[in-house]
């Protein structure tokens, strides 16, 4: 008697890639806008980026229904925080909240691969990268999603930051200027769109600086 198997899955993968890069006084968060299922495209104009707080932006790839549910959860919890503390959550606090929220569903996870980017309390860029169940780390840059295997080595090559295990502790943020980082992101997505079938259509770039949040778009390959 073989074990009974489920004949359906609660999950689906809507594909796409996300990237975030932290700078000295800015943070770039980017994601493509293609939403797919299997070999089909559902839409070419879906935003995977969500503003969680004043200086905190999250990009998530994976199962977008779970991503949407996760975003709503975080937004509601943020509202409660604002009522209690009379101020917005800072990026490191939101990072911890995201981790806890993901682990809360450890045994029926959000199928969501996240990068969180923003400015910390001192105005320096910070990027946090997650797995589906909330394991997270503060890094200088990261990518997630279907194109991450293509993107990450390229970022490693361009933004090589010293190991965080070395002493003295070195800054993980890139010395690049904001414009250079945005250019790098555009290059990286153009390359990923060439070989990853789930990445393409349009690139959405969000830049967080002390002056606020700026949004930019770039066309990508549609095939």
């Amino acid at each position, binding site marked *: 008697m073989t074990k009974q198997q489920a004949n359906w899955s609660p999950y689906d993968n809507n594909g796409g890639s996300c990237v975030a890069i932290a700078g000295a006084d800015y943070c770039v968060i980017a994601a493509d806008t293609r939403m797919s299922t299997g070999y089909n495209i559902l839409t070419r104009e879906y935003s995977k980026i969500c503003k969680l707080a004043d200086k905190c932006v999250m990009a998530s790839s994976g199962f977008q229904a779970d991503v949407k549910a996760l975003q*709503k959860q975080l937004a*509601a919890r943020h*509202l*409660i925080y604002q*009522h209690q503390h009379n101020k917005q959550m800072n990026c490191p606090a939101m990072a911890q909240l995201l981790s806890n929220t993901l682990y809360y569903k450890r045994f029926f996870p959000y199928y969501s691969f996240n990068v969180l980017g923003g400015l910390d309390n001192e105005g320096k860029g910070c990027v946090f990268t997650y797995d589906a169940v909330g394991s997270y780390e503060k890094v200088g840059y990261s990518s997630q999603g279907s194109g991450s295997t293509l993107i990450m080595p390229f970022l490693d090559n361009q933004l090589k930051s010293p190991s965080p295990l070395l002493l003295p502790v070195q800054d993980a943020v890139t010395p690049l200027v904001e414009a250079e980082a945005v250019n790098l992101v555009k290059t990286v997505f153009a390359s990923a769109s060439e070989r990853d079938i789930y990445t393409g259509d349009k690139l959405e770039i969000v830049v967080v600086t002390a002056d606020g949040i700026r949004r930019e778009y770039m066309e990508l390959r549609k095939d």
Partner: protein
Amino acid sequence: MFRNQYDTDVTTWSPAGRLFQVEYAMEAVKQGSAAIGLRSKTHIVLGCVNKANSELSSHQKKIFKVDDHIGVAIAGLTADGRVLSRYMRNECINYSFTYESPLPVGRLVVQLADKAQVCTQRSWKRPYGVGLLVAGLDESGAHLYYNCPSGNYFEYQAFAIGSRSQAAKTYLERRFENFADSSWDDLVKDALMAIRETLQGETLKSSICTVAVVGVGEPFHILDQETVQQMIDAFEVVGEQEGSAAEPDAAAGQEAAAEQGAAAADQGGSTDECVAPMDI
């Protein structure tokens, strides 16, 4: 006294058909420092008097933001008010989460009223000792409600609760017919004048009052001290003329030396009470 026999329990009726514990709870509201609310077709203004226990302490928070479109001013046991505000905030958040739209004010006040009613029918509970002026904007327009400890709620064009609120109510009764079409400035000014009525002669300063506004295109927010002080200064200058213009009564026909003097005479002011022990 006769009524002491039936007032031990909230679940005991008096022979006259009254629940004294509930009425005592409403008394607690009357002891609190004043809170007023008034609305036009598009905006609602809440105001309250801030009383601090002593020079050294900060004043109690009496106006709470519940959501972008709803705010509440309380009078009575502020601790109860804080707890109810937290409940209201949660209800708004949960509704938004489920329906992706703001909770209609009328629904919120009914939930609040039902919550208050429960405490009037359980032997192990006591009624909430706080009255709430709920100001909110939804698809059906601008609303101002008053929620009682008894579980009753009423909608108002303008209202005042707390100690010396009768003075404010008299002022509002004279003016409320004009509120529907009032401008933002006029509405806030009327609120400040109503607050002033409850002060019985004390100078109105932005440090002793709090004003909050919610309206079309304007999420609920508490006005900062400077703005409030500017508005006070603006009408204090024309105060004497306004003082006589506002009162149709012949009694205040002559310009009194101070507009406060005229106001006090008009109200037939009660003696100055000291602030209640459960400071509000």
